[in-house]
């Protein structure tokens, strides 16, 4: 299937927070109740539409286990978006966010859009991290924030799509150099860079109202 853009995402966060489940829910609309530990880095893809444009999301689901950290780090490079996930029923996963964030900032490009996700919102009874805390953390570090449930699918679409919207906006604003694949953005096969697209060199013509 043809697409206008391809965005690369990574999903990071402690083991068991539900990264693979989020991906599965987003790509297959399924939930996996058993914890199948991710060993290494897995991959998923889905097409979405933003502003009438087909966008392919290529998502790298990384293992949260400490021992895989060296392997997974090598996948940070070339990601345009990151979902940083913690588990609202486990405070330690929230406490580790700073480490994850440092790691991500260090190994990825500086423009990467990071979405902070408090997952397992369906387990309200076992909540250990308040929503406000997540919001505060996100505000402090300039991240977007959302609480999701990979089980009920609540906010799952939104999490992935809002991240894409943010990236798309950054492209429109000329923040991303779309010709550099290291930024995690690729122009679709038949969508070679057209003059109407704003490049990093400056704001191009607005209102790309063509088909």
């Amino acid at each position, binding site marked *: 299937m043809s697409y206008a853009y391809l965005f690369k995402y990574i999903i990071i966060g402690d083991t068991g927070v539900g990264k693979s489940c989020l991906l599965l829910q987003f790509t297959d609309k399924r939930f*996996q109740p058993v914890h*199948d*530990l991710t*060993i290494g880095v*897995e991959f998923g893809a889905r097409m979405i539409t933003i502003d009438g444009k087909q966008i392919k999301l290529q998502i790298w689901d990384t*293992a949260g286990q400490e*021992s*895989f950290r060296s392997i997974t780090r090598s996948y940070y490079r070339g990601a345009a978006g990151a979902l940083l996930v913690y588990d609202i029923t486990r405070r330690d996963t929230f406490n580790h966010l700073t480490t994850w964030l440092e790691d991500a900032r260090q190994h990825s490009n500086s423009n990467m859009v990071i979405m902070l996700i408090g997952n397992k919102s369906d387990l309200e009874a076992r909540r250990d991290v308040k929503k406000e805390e997540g919001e505060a953390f996100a505000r402090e570090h300039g991240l977007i924030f959302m609480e999701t449930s990979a089980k009920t699918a609540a906010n799952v679409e939104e999490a992935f799509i809002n991240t894409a919207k943010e990236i798309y906006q950054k492209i429109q604003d000329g923040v991303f150099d779309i010709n550099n694949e290291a930024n995690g953005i690729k122009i679709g096969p038949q969508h070679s860079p057209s003059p109407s697209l704003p490049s990093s060199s400056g704001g191009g013509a607005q209102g790309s109202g063509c088909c």
Partner: protein
Amino acid sequence: MAFLQWRRFNFFDKEILKDTESDQVYDKLKDVNISACVSGRGQLIVGDHEGYVYLINKQLSLNMFKAYEIRVSHLYQLKQHNLLVSIGEDEQGINPLIKVWNLDKMEKGGPLCTRISRAIPNNKATPVTCLVVHENLNWMAVGFENGSVMLFKGDVTRDRHNKSRIVHETSRPVTALEFRTQGKNIFLFVVTEASVVSINISGKQDAKNTLEQFGGKLGGVVMSDHNQDNQLVVARPDAVYFYQSDSRGPCLAFEGEKLRLHWFRNYLIVVGKEDKTLPRPVQLGGQTMEMNIVTVYDIQNKFIAYSAPFPDVIDVLSEWGCVYILGGDRKIYQLQEKDTQTKLEMLFKKNNYTLAISLAKSQQYDQEGLIDIFTQYGDHLYSKGDHDGAIDQYIKTIGKLEASYVIRKFLDAQRIHNLTKYLQALHKQQQATEEHTTLLLNCYTKLKDVNKLDEFIMTKDREVDFDVETAIRVCRQAGYFEHALFLAEKHGKHEWYLRIQLEDIKQYQRALQYISKLEFSEAEKNVKRYGKVLMAEVPQETTELLKRLCTDYRPTDKPLVDQNMYDGTVGHIEKAQAENFIHIFVNNSERLTEFLEHMIRVQPNSPSLLYNSLLELYLHDIVHETDSMKKTERVRKTEELLKNPDAKYDLDQAMVLCQMNDFKVGILYLYEKAHLYQQILRYHMEHDDYVNVIETCKKFGQQDSNLWVQALSYFARKEDDCKPQLMEVLSQIDKKNLLPPLLVIQTLAHNSTATLSVVKDYIIRRLQMENDQIAEDERLIKQYREDTDKKRAQIEELKTTAKVFQASKCNICNHPLELPSVHFLCEPHSYHQHCFESYAENDSECPVCAAENRKIMDIIRAQEQSRDLHEQFHNQLQRSQDGFSVVADYFGRGVFNKVTLITDSPARQTSKSPATSRYV
């Protein structure tokens, strides 16, 4: 430390290959110094350091041929062609030769060798490290220890027309080469110990893409199958990495040093160095052998399908549906995959249904089998109390597994939410019966889940997957009337709709509006059915509807101009019969009056029932109206109705009605209309209305003179003094000669007040008249007698004397008569014969008299026919005042005679009887 590995199963059976004949362990490779192994076209092929190639077939018989003088170093077996490509040396030193063998052409010394060419990059002597051939037989690549890759383009099987070039050069030895075709592009993967590079070799210029800055070792690279997108798989100590032609793919962190990779079906087979914690060297021929671990990974389903130690593995091959591990002990170990059912059962035992399902799916398990797994899984989750999970599984069984099985389970457990979900799914898949719909709706209502109910019922354009009537019924029973109404309206269940509106929520107005929108026949039917209720509740609107229904009905939401009118074909206007709706008005006479008046005005030729009813209403009103103004108005209207020439009321009925309500004007009008003058008279008599008695006689005496007679006896009986009236009556009776005087006297004799003076004049005049009459009669008798005598004489004369015909002219042509001639006794008439013949209708009748004769004959004939009319006779006799004259008349007409036309006997009217004779 967490358990950082996939689940482990034992899905393969291990066996050491044995010689089929001796049943001893297969050891034909015992002394072979193996340098290379391949498989793929029905045999295992091994090359050795002595230059031999060994071919082992399924029966394990071994063939060998000498391929090189010195040694074989590399072998490549094509999959789609029975071609074997080898690299080895015929001379000492570094002098690798490529040879291509056609295995289909076996000769004495071995298969046909179709090509021999040198493989020396840039004339630098360097050992070959790897070899790959493209299945299209157009590409071949050889990697060298010095880091260069030589690519051959052109027919692989021949030496000629081949072009070779160096496509890649690095400082590190090349460890693996693989081709990958992607559409029109052909990529060559080059793996060295320090990099992974893909080169697009199909373009004009080689396009190189460095995919990774670290590489893999010899043997540690393999191509995956299409399920894994034909990715290149490279083993490294920390993980196994996958590569697309343009980028790195996922990675699997299988730790440990990996010696070889092999791909079998959907499995990645990794030969790893034995874990340091298990040093168990094996003694073999005095040699110490290391143990390797062979692990079979199911990449797709993420589990380990087999794992076991093997001694110093030389290579892993696959052929005949099995995996063969060539051990350092020169034994061949066969790994046979268990069949799917066995594997599934193993998974069931561990309650690992999720895996069982994905496994079954990846093995193209059939639907039945899958359903079976879903059911088992559902049962398992249910028994664990995971109802949410269980229902998800059961939902997947819909269409196969009996729904009642699931429903009962969840009903018993009172899991309404789960049950609802299941029932919804049943509906979505069009598998729901009426009971299911009922149950689902009951679930919704029990859960008070109006949103779901809305969604189920109210969603516009939703495909209907349930029984509508059932749904209406359930909603209604549960009190969700709006839902029921919505359905009823949407699906045109008018009766349901109206019953709910009228019986449950009592929205009469809405019900009425609904009916107004229906097509005629439906509207009519429903008004008949529910009219009474509607009339009782919303009389005005109901009446209006009825008016329209009985005149020019059209559904309210229909455009005024419809297609028919465009077409010019005026649609047939349907209207209902007003009389069928009268009963609807029950006690609402006001509305009924309005309705009937409307109908009669719009359709004057309405049936009599309408007029009768209206009349009845009017009369009833007159009787019960107290306000005199209104009463007069009513009377006026009633009269108007009665006198309206168009009014089609039934006369008898109207009469009865007027009488019952004692509506004088009406009664009299109707009598008159029916020509019942006697009744009028009697009416006045009963009311002793002398003036009107006389008036009536005057008015109608013309039509019925008997009135006077009755008046006479009426007044005669009166004891009051009614002389003037009597005088009046008598004078009329006298003038019209209505009664014989004797009877008049007799009648008056009853009256005590009638004096002689009243009748004196009358009697005298009558007697005088009688005398005159007698005289006249006698004169007539005398005259008739004379006539009769005259006729008799004439007859006598005709009989006895000759008749002289003296006529000189023909009665037809008026010319002088000459012979031959014809004479008739009548007149007498004479004719020329030729004149007679041309005029006469028959030759026995006088043409001149014929017309007159015929008239008389016809009269006689008519009389004869009417002789049967006793009825008529009796009627006339009864009606007549003078019965005698009637009898005389009939008698005279021969009614009582046996009259036949042949007789000559003269009838009374035929004074001139036709006597005919003919002379020639």
